């Protein structure tokens, strides 16, 4: 019943929760939160090495690459060229030919530039990458990304780091209905009920960073998010009841004392 892996590009993941590595109070807390989240895919950013101060610890000291799959991302890229270049550098580190592809279109909203995203997806698929594009919650661009060879589509629930929850429930539902590749809701989750909602809508997974990293207790929040994702997934598989306008009794309607009294005479 619980054997229900997330499969992307032929690779199976036990957990449907994917977590980030940014904004944690410390690397040690991050490692504990990762453990509590149960995630077996973790996303990392690519940046220039600090050549003047080598005292900083390496992020990779705090991730067990034997146990979890490392998903490099192109966070912070504002053009297709930068994202493509960053993806190639990330692949060269040698841990993965997968990329969470981001091409940001605007600093204030951090919404994706979908035109550049589509272009970068085409190039990177051609170059042999497994491409997971972070995109707007727009069914049309999601369809085009899938046609371009994306291994999954990752529509946002709300702006990155906003914690607003799923803003466009109907679009996420439509994207799930039309997509043949996995749909990962990426960004915007604030609390476990947001993650559960994404999963109840049929999302195949949820990716989050800030909601865990900046919670007052990231480790406890990571555990809560794990449960939220699992609850939502089970509910989706179980099949929800239809919504109704009016009440519908869940106890038998015949044989109550009140029914006898209301009818005015014994039967």
């Amino acid at each position, binding site marked *: 019943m619980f054997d229900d892996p997330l499969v992307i590009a032929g690779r199976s993941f036990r957990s449907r929760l994917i977590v980030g590595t940014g904004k944690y109070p410390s690397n040690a807390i991050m490692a504990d939160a990762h453990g509590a989240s149960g995630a077996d895919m973790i996303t990392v950013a690519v940046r220039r090495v600090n050549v003047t101060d080598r005292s900083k610890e390496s992020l990779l000291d705090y991730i067990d690459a034997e146990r979890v799959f490392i998903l490099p991302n192109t966070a912070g890229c504002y053009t297709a060229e930068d994202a493509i270049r960053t993806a190639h550098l990330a692949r060269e580190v040698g841990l993965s030919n997968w990329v969470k592809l981001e091409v940001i279109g605007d600093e204030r909203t951090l919404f994706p530039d979908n035109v550049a995203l589509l272009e970068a997806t085409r190039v990177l698929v051609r170059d042999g990458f497994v491409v997971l594009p972070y995109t707007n919650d727009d069914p049309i661009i999601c369809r085009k990304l899938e046609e371009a060879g994306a291994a999954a589509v990752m529509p946002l629930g709300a702006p*990155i780091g906003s914690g607003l929850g799923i803003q466009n429930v109907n679009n996420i539902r439509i994207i799930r209905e039309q997509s043949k590749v996995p749909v990962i809701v990426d960004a915007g989750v604030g609390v476990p009920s947001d993650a559960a909602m994404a999963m109840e809508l049929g999302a195949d997974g949820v990716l989050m960073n800030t909601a865990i990293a900046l919670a007052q207790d990231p480790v406890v929040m990571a555990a809560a998010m794990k449960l939220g994702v699992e609850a939502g997934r089970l509910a989706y598989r179980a099949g929800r009841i239809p919504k109704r306008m009016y009440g519908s009794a869940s106890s038998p309607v015949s044989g109550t004392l009140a029914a006898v009294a209301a009818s005015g005479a014994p039967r």
Partner: protein
Amino acid sequence: MKIQLNGDPYELAGPMTIAALLAQLEIEPRRVAVEHNLDIVKRARYETTTINEGDAVEIVNFVGGGGGEPVR
């Protein structure tokens, strides 16, 4: 001799290989990727790729991030 290292001017004693530069900077080669004049250098070529006057070298690694962080 002067090169551009990660976008900034950097002084080297003279031409040297990528491997020698990484050793000088105390950088673990297995955790980084290197670009030399905009071309990615495969790890197997670190010993044979020489950096010369005016070259541009980029050394990147993995850092914490989920998404959307602005370019610093």
